[in-house]
Each structure stands twice: as structure tokens, then as C-alpha cells.
């Protein structure tokens, strides 16, 4: 039977010659991931169930990234709990403050995700690694606990939707604009329980950083996972970052898809998602006059080096609008250092931005940039739900680093084409 890319990976990890949509399987896991919010719950469940050993100390990653550096005493206690667990179990991939980064930027950078892997993480944006041709999906703390003990997880094999990316995107259009465009088209439950499979000649024009951004937001369309075909760019990334063995899977030519969409990348415009759902998208030409109080550039969605380069390129030699707070947070220590060496950090600070250590903090209203009542932010993060970045009456507008940086200069949501040309 013909299978999609995701189905092939799941079949291989379940030890089955084939699987079909809807089938319940038990699959072997290549990496189990958790953070300082979800791992404490998992650790408690793991202990309560009476487990004393993890299945494989090399195949677990724990990254304290959400409320770190510890934002308050309770957060510090949560981090201590997972630190002690990681040390006690000799978990190899525990990343302390100083070596950590935002988990979904850090895991690929560390070479822990490669094509053909099955990865689960107690964080919804675990779907990011689909950019590398892996099956990766978010789960909860109980699933994390069970997988740490057994190395396995149950899955219902998903059906898939195919997205054929065609042509070349315009100068200021990145993966963020393309995925926002897609979510606007199919809605926040448009891919519920399904895989989003990204194929087509347009892939050649999408950098790995753009692909990570797109796979990252598959969850915002309700998808179980987003997955990209593996090409030369993917393999070059893997060669540079990983020594793990990998396997490249491609969908069967006659695999079944519940729907197929062709996206002409040359027609996608810089796109902004208005409050309070990622599906409330408008092109930059339709946004109107939206004044802003804060700009946030970073996160697991858009905190990679290319994102920082784009933002710094627009802000360089210019000044942030009076009264607008601009917070840039590179996603990992390595990205931060790279940005420093390229002179980008200096350009950002001279323009009037602040640059933060890697943390998820502002994205989920945790710390480092919480919004007051009535305030508006343009941000390169992934969610604009009610109260996401602070007060329930604040507003979040999702955009690319280019739009966010252009908006920082004007104090209203702005088109980078008009600022830079």
C-alpha cells in the first residue's frame, strides 16, 4: 500500500511493513524532549509510577528554557527538580543555562534531530524538526514520562494534506509569511489530527531556517506534524550539525492525501496574523494603521541567525520609534555568539533594541517583556491567543522578522518594502 512520508517513518518505527491512516501503533522513539514547565510534571509521574531508570540516557533531552534564567522562586524550584532528575539519571542531553537555547532551535543545532527520526516532546512546537524530514510531534507530560521509561509511544497514524510549494518568494517574504498565509487559508483546525507534507520546486528557495519556521507552526493549523521532503540543503545541514545515523524517506508517488494545495510562492505577500488567532491573517497591504507598543523578535519560530540578520539589516543605522520597546532574543547561545561576531548585536543595540539571553519568556507572557492592559505587540512568535503575552486585554500581532523590524522603526505595523525598498 502506498504511504506518505510520515506513514513510512511510523511504519519503520513500529516494526511494520506498512501502516494506514487511523491505525493505532506503538512506535520506538529516537528522542524524548521536555522543558522546565512540562518536565517537572513528567518527572513526578515517572516517580509515582515507580520507574527507577530511563530507557536510554542518550535519547532524552531536557532543556530548561521557558522561565529561565529562573524568573521567580517557584520557577527556580521547578528547574531544580528537573536538574536533579537529569543528573541522577545521567541524562546526556541536559542543557543548563549558559549552554542552553530555546529547545526547538537547540535540538537541531546540537544534531539531535535527523531525517527519519521519530521524536516526541512535551512542548507543542516539537513539530519543528519536520523541517529535517523527521516525524516529530508534541505530547504531554504523562506521555513524556511513559516514553522516558519505555522508549515507546502510541500513535494514531495520521492522514496527510499535501502542500505543493511552487516558484520563488519575493524579497521580503520568508517561511513565516508562507506558513501564516497557509494557516489563514486552512484555519487553526484546518489540519487537525493530520500531517502537513511540504513538497515542490519552491523548496529550493526556502532556507533551512525558513523551513524550521514553517514546520514549527504546523501545530497552529492543528496538525499532528509538519514534514518537508529531504533535499541537498537538508543533507548539508545534517552533515554540518550531526553525527547521528539518519534515513531519508520519500512519500510513495501514489500515496493518498486528503487534500492538496498548490501555493505560488511568488504571490505570497508579507503576512500578519491579527488577534486573537493565527488564522486571522491579512497581507501587509491590508493591515491599515495599527499602532504598537512593543516589538519582539526571536523565539523557537524566528530566533535563528537568518532572522536576526534580517532584523539587524533593517534596523542598522536607523532608530527605533520613540515609545516603542524592541526586544530581540536570539534562540541559542551559538546563534547569539554568531550574531555578536557578525556585528548584528551592536547594530540592534545602536538602533535602540534590547538583546536578551535565549528564553521562551516573552512569547508566553512569562517574563522579559510582558504586556500591560491595552498594549499591542508585533512579534515573530507563534501564538496570539487572548492573554498570550500578558494582560488578557493586550493584543499580539504575528509577523516575520522583516515586518517586525520595519514596524519597530515606525511604531505601527509596517511593510519592509516601504522602509528599505
Amino acid at each position, binding site marked *: 500500500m502506498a504511504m506518505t512520508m510520515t506513514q513510512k517513518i511510523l511504519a519503520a518505527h513500529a516494526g511494520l511493513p506498512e501502516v494506514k491512516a487511523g491505525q493505532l501503533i506503538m512506535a520506538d522513539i529516537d528522542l524524548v524532549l521536555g522543558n522546565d514547565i*512540562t518536565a517537572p510534571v513528567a518527572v513526578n509521574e515517572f516517580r509515582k509510577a515507580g520507574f527507577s531508570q530511563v530507557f536510554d540516557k542518550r535519547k532524552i533531552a531536557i532543556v530548561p528554557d521557558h522561565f529561565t534564567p529562573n524568573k521567580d522562586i517557584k520557577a527556580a524550584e521547578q528547574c531544580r527538580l528537573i536538574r536533579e532528575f537529569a543528573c541522577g539519571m545521567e541524562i546526556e542531553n541536559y542543557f543548563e543555562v549558559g549552554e542552553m537555547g530555546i529547545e526547538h532551535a537547540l535540538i537541531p543545532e546540537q544534531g539531535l534531530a535527523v531525517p527519519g527520526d521519530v521524536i516526541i516532546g512535551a512542548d*507543542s512546537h516539537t513539530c519543528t524538526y519536520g523541517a529535517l524530514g523527521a516525524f516529530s510531534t508534541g505530547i504531554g507530560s504523562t506521555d513524556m514520562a511513559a516514553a522516558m521509561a519505555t522508549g515507546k509511544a502510541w500513535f494514531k497514524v495520521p492522514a496527510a494534506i499535501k502542500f505543493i510549494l511552487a516558484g520563488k518568494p519575493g524579497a521580503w517574504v520568508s517561511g513565516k509569511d508562507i506558513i501564516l498565509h497557509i494557516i489563514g487559508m486552512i484555519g487553526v483546525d484546518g489540519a487537525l489530527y493530520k500531517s502537513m507534507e511540504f513538497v515542490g520546486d519552491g523548496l529550493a528557495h526556502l532556507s533551512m531556517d525558513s523551513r524550521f519556521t514553517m514546520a514549527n507552526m504546523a501545530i497552529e493549523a492543528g496538525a499532528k506534524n509538519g514534514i518537508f521532503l529531504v533535499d541537498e540543503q537538508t543533507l548539508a545541514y545534517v552533515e554540518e550539525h550531526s553525527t547521528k545515523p539518519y534515513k531519508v524517506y520519500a512519500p510513495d508517488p501514489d500515496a493518498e492525501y486528503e487534500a492538496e494545495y498548490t501555493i505560488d510562492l511568488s504571490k505570497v505577500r508579507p503576512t500578519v496574523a491579527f488577534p486573537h488567532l493565527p488564522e486571522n491573517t491579512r497581507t501587509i497591504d491590508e493591515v491599515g494603521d495599527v499602532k504598537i507598543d512593543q516589538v519582539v523578535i526571536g523565539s523557537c519560530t524566528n530566533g535563528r541567525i537568518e532572522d536576526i540578520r534580517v532584523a539587524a539589516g533593517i534596523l542598522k543605522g536607523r532608530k527605533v520609534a520613540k515609545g516603542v520597546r524592541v526586544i530581540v532574543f536570539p534562540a541559542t547561545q551559538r546563534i547569539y555568539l554568531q550574531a555578536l561576531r557578525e556585528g548584528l548585536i551592536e547594530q540592534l543595540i545602536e538602533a535602540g533594541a534590547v538583546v536578551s539571553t535565549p528564553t521562551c519568556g516573552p512569547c508566553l*507572557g512569562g517574563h522579559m517583556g510582558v504586556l500591560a492592559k491595552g498594549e499591542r505587540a508585533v512579534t515573530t512568535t507563534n501564538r496570539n491567543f487572548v492573554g498570550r503575552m500578558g494582560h488578557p486585554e493586550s493584543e499580539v500581532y504575528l509577523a516575520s522578522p522583516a515586518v517586525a523590524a520595519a514596524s519597530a522603526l515606525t511604531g505601527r505595523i509596517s511593510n519592509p518594502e516601504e522602509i528599505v525598498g
Partner: protein
Amino acid sequence: MQVQGTVFKYGDNVDTDVIIPARYLNTSDPAELAKHCMEDLDKDFVKNVQPGDIIVAGRNFGCGSSREHAPLAIKTAGVSVVIAATFARIFYRNAINIGLPILECPEAVADIQAGDKISVDFTSGVITNLTSGESYQAEPFPEFMQELIAAGGLLNYLKNR
């Protein structure tokens, strides 16, 4: 097993950030989380909810984050079952894994109003609106899920095996 309670009704796309805002995620104590359940959507929910009460909502309930704190907060607040047109997949999985009963039934969701008294039979999947007299057949759990729930969640299920 049957439960009965008063309905709290919400719309589509109730996300995990309104079910339990991230500002409270510096703890995983269920009682502490329950105090803030639904706070950014319905600030009176915690004041008004009684043990056994039922949440009825539209499409894509529980979308967003993978925080298991969301079903945990709902369960600990005393809610006996959540009925929605559809659930976001991570929430669906988490609810089963921690033993919060959930049912998908768009027909029931379309008719049932806030404040109605309803009963739900988990074995048959029948939802009865005691206020209007109507009843609905919900999609029952697949056998695999029933085994997980009967065992009291995923970890007990694994331990028993």
C-alpha cells in the same frame, strides 16, 4: 458510569492559554492550577463551578500548548466531562492520559445551552439534556482508549502490563 451536572458553554478554539494562563505555570500543583482555570475566558468560572459540572464547547477545544496543566486544571476544578465538537490533538491525548473524560459530539454542542442540566453515560456515549429532554449519541472511545481509561491513565496501563 454516569455523570450529571450543569453546563458551562464556550465557543470554538478555546486555547490552553485561556484554560490555564502561562503566568501560573511556575507550579504544577493541581489545586493551585485549578484556582485559575478558564480565568482569561470566564473569570467567574472557578467561583461558579460545582463538582460534577460539565464544559460544552465548539471546535478545536484545547488548541495551542502541550501543557498537561490544562486538562489537569479542568479536572481538579471539579469538571466531570468536557464535550466538544472537536478537540485539538495534544489536549485530546493529554486528557485521556490523565483521566479527564472527553467526548466529541457536534450535535449535542449545537443544541445544549449554558445552564442546562445534562447527564452523560460513558459506557454508551449517550448524552441526555435533562432540561430539554433531548438526547445525543457521542462517538464512543476506541477500545485502545477505553483500556487506558479503565487502567486509570497511561502510566497505570503501562505498569499493569
